[in-house]
């Protein structure tokens, strides 16, 4: 069962739709009590960094999330802004992030003549083997929409790398904490396989 955190940001409908299509059980909740019994957590997000961190605090779920992620160590997957929230902080805002992985969120370079946001399909290169990215075959592609990107301290925490002006982490994994910068729910077979992999992780 995947518990999708509803803190008021992000289009959860599409993610739920894809999880149903890959026959993964999921629930959507913002209730700390329900989150406390989660065996797998998905953190979505669309919008601004600070607004998201504020909402998480306002919803009173920060503590239970920290507990699940850092102490109980259940599998966690952050998607889009949700992946950026896993980092220490973002150049987009002033608030610290969740800090669950040693990484920073930085602005994509606006001075290289490329259009910001990075929007469209792009290729992702597998930098190391990882259960999250298993069975992604051939040229791996995903659909991206973002203006900020994640750079991990430890290169081994980046499991998929994409280039848009700079190389950045398209997906990360450090122990039980995982993230995907792209929209898996808009990346048809690639997104489905990734979510299937997440759903099948032992917990």
């Amino acid at each position: 069962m995947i518990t999708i955190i509803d803190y008021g940001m992000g289009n959860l409908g599409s993610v739920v739709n894809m999880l149903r299509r890959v026959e993964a059980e999921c629930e959507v909740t913002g209730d700390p009590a329900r989150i406390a019994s989660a065996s797998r957590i998905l953190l979505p997000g669309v919008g601004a960094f600070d607004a998201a961190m504020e909402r998480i605090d306002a919803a009173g779920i920060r503590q239970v999330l920290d507990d699940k992620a850092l102490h109980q160590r259940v599998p966690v997957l952050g998607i889009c802004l949700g992946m950026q929230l896993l980092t220490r902080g973002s150049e987009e805002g002033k608030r610290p992030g969740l800090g669950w992985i040693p990484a920073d969120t930085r602005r994509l370079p606006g001075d290289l003549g490329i259009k910001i946001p990075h929007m469209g399909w792009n290729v992702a290169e597998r930098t190391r083997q990882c259960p999250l990215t298993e069975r992604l075959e051939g040229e791996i592609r995903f659909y991206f929409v973002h203006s900020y990107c994640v750079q991990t301290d430890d290169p081994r925490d980046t499991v998929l790398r994409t280039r848009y002006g700079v190389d950045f982490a398209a997906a990360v994994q450090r122990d039980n904490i995982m993230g995907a910068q792209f929209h898996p729910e808009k990346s048809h077979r690639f997104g489905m396989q990734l979510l299937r992999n997440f759903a099948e992780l032992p917990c």
Partner: protein
Amino acid sequence: MPVAVSPNSRGYELPRGTDLTASGRKICARCIYDDSVHGIEFSDDGVCSYCKLIDRLTAQYGTGASQGTATFEELVRQIRESGLGKPYDVAIGVSGGTDSSYMLWLAKEYGLRPLAVHYDNTWNTAIATQNIFKVTSALGIDLHTHVCDNREADDIFRSFMLAGVPEVDGSTDIALAEVMYRAATRFNIGYVFEGHSFIAEGVSPLGKAYIDGAYIADLHRKFGNRPMRTFPNMTFARFLYWTTVCRIQKVRPLWYLPYSKEDARSFLSTNFGWQDYGGHHLENRMTAFHHSYYTPRKFGLDQRNNSLCASVRSGKISRQQALAAYRDPPHLESGLVEYVLKRLGFTATEFENLMSQPPRFYTEYRTYKRRFERCRPLFAVLAKRGLVPMSFYLKYCFPAKAPE
């Protein structure tokens, strides 16, 4: 018998496979038809009447032997002659499935100029459309399509489900037959190829399922909401018109020529990039729902035995493999039932109610059955002349035992 398991979190039940060995039924020694198959008999050697029927038909038509090939070559000669000076000489109904795709190739091999004809009930899968596209493009064959208005098609499917009868996708078969005749007439084509193979598909007995234009009209009248305007229904009058006035000949090449579905599939995929869709007619979502969910669940009818038996008889798989495949639950495209609910406008509760209501059968509604029986002498003549399929004559023109 296929039995439903308890509802999953989606609110509807899933069908199971059919375990014949555990069922205690008598199973044919050669294929895997069991004693629940309508009209079946077993001889002393334990072989069923359908195996024997197929042996008889094979001998009669010389299927796969020089006699059959010679008969077919003569038919081809007649077809070519009748098509001189016209843009096409034969019409071939296509679905993206194995048989029809193979027949397109066959027609070209024999120097014919086919027109591919497709009836689109608006429930195609990508595999179906891609297969049609790849094969027609590679062979340079033109395609004529009749698309039914999606709202009408759905209204008819809905009517069949509300009526509680088994033939939820039966309207597609009638529509295809009507569309074939219309296209043949419009393009001045005297011959139609049909992909039926009694060897590869078996001969499905007239049991609980039945379909004709009057039946569709009656269910639509009683349970439908939209006027039938683009759905190509075949009335009795039109049937007679096509067969006796237009005199369009139906030819079944696979009754004469050597054919195995398995070999055809590898041939098609190697040469055209054709893709398998995992089962008879599962390339169309409504047909898939019909065969993989609806009739197994509501009527205990798992018709995968037809093609499994055919594979066993031709030696492609063993009886044990067939029984094992039959035991597995039918394959369902992910989200198919939700899709059906969405398109036909049922809630999960309404759907469950429909599925658990007592089954009803064609005998309770208006059909042409008695008229077909009364006109048997006429259809006997037409069958002999190839104007109606012999299997239609045998199945429809004789009284049938009413389904319980």
